[in-house]
């Protein structure tokens, strides 16, 4: 699991990072003293797990969670147990650790996170099509309000993950479908579409321009993850 640590206290970050170092399957990619810096990082990188301090000045952990469109799993860390009930209102919350964190308690949180991340990956790779039906030629059928709606695949320019839903944007209309980005990614032709970020799949033919870490498609500026940028550049007909 790739993880990041967000905590305004260096001592807390050091302790969590030390705990993580005793697990072979956890890699701490970055540490952040505030949530704003972490948001910028998350726009460009895919992460499995966040250790998030709730009580931070200016922008607290709960504010941070609310800004994430498609949050990874999160383990909350805090010196204040009073936030626990509010915290579990969010599906992405795996566990809640009260400081000072005991190693045994940390270990339990990792086991929970591991199980949930594995389950989530399994769901993403399952062959179930749920609300995205079979392709017929250039068409994709999606199930919306018990009706199968036909979408012309080349007209799709963007697919965005929005919690348990995806939004499919086409030249003429936008569709919101209860499905995952992984499921539609499997249904779209790979020569035309590319996942450029954990929340976005784009139609390469519809790109208007590319900046360092983003692409412009229609009027949408879409972030490109650092890890996905080389594949994007490979797929372009560069002069």
């Amino acid at each position, binding site marked *: 699991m790739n993880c990041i640590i967000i905590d305004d*206290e*260096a*001592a807390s970050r*050091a*302790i969590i990072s030390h705990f993580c170092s005793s697990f072979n399957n956890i890699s701490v990619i970055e540490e952040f003293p505030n949530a704003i810096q972490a948001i910028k990082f998350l726009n460009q990188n895919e992460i499995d797990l966040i250790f998030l301090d709730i009580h931070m000045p200016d922008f607290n952990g709960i504010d941070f969670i609310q800004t994430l469109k498609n949050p990874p799993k999160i383990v909350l860390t805090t*010196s204040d147990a009073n936030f626990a009930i509010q915290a579990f209102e969010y599906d992405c919350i795996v566990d809640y650790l009260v400081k*000072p964190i005991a190693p045994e308690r940390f270990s339990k949180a990792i086991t929970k996170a591991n199980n949930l991340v594995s389950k989530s990956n399994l769901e993403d790779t399952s062959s179930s099509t749920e609300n995205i039906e079979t392709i017929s030629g250039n068409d994709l059928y999606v199930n919306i309000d018990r009706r199968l709606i036909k979408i012309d695949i080349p007209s799709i320019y963007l697919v965005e993950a929005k919690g348990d839903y995806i939004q499919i944007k086409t030249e003429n209309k936008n569709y919101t479908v209860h499905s995952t980005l992984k499921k539609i990614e499997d249904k779209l032709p790979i020569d035309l579409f590319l996942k450029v970020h954990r929340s976005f799949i784009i139609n390469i033919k519809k790109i208007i321009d590319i900046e360092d870490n983003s692409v412009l498609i229609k009027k949408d500026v879409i972030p490109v993850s650092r890890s996905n940028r080389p594949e994007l550049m490979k797929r372009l007909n560069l002069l």
Partner: protein
Amino acid sequence: MEQPNLSYINSMSGGDERFEEKLIMIIKDEFPIEKKDYYHNYKSNNFKLAAGNVHKLKHKISILGLEKSYEIAVAFENNLLKGNTNLSQEFESILINITNYLKKL
């Protein structure tokens, strides 16, 4: 008064002495800054901000094994959030206690 100790740090380090040294250095660096912020906000009657400083300091208090002092810090933080300064002297004694201990490390 209870004395700060390294029992938590020793128990969570798994015997990693380099990590223990690193963590103590971080505490020695961070604690004076957090303490200064607390005194500044408290003296300026910014009790909500001071409560935030106490919140941060109470983690250091717990890392240094000060269980009773931690309870005082929790109560003082709650007081400050209500604009009440009760327990300020007790809390500031804890800060002095830790300051003296860190000087010896």
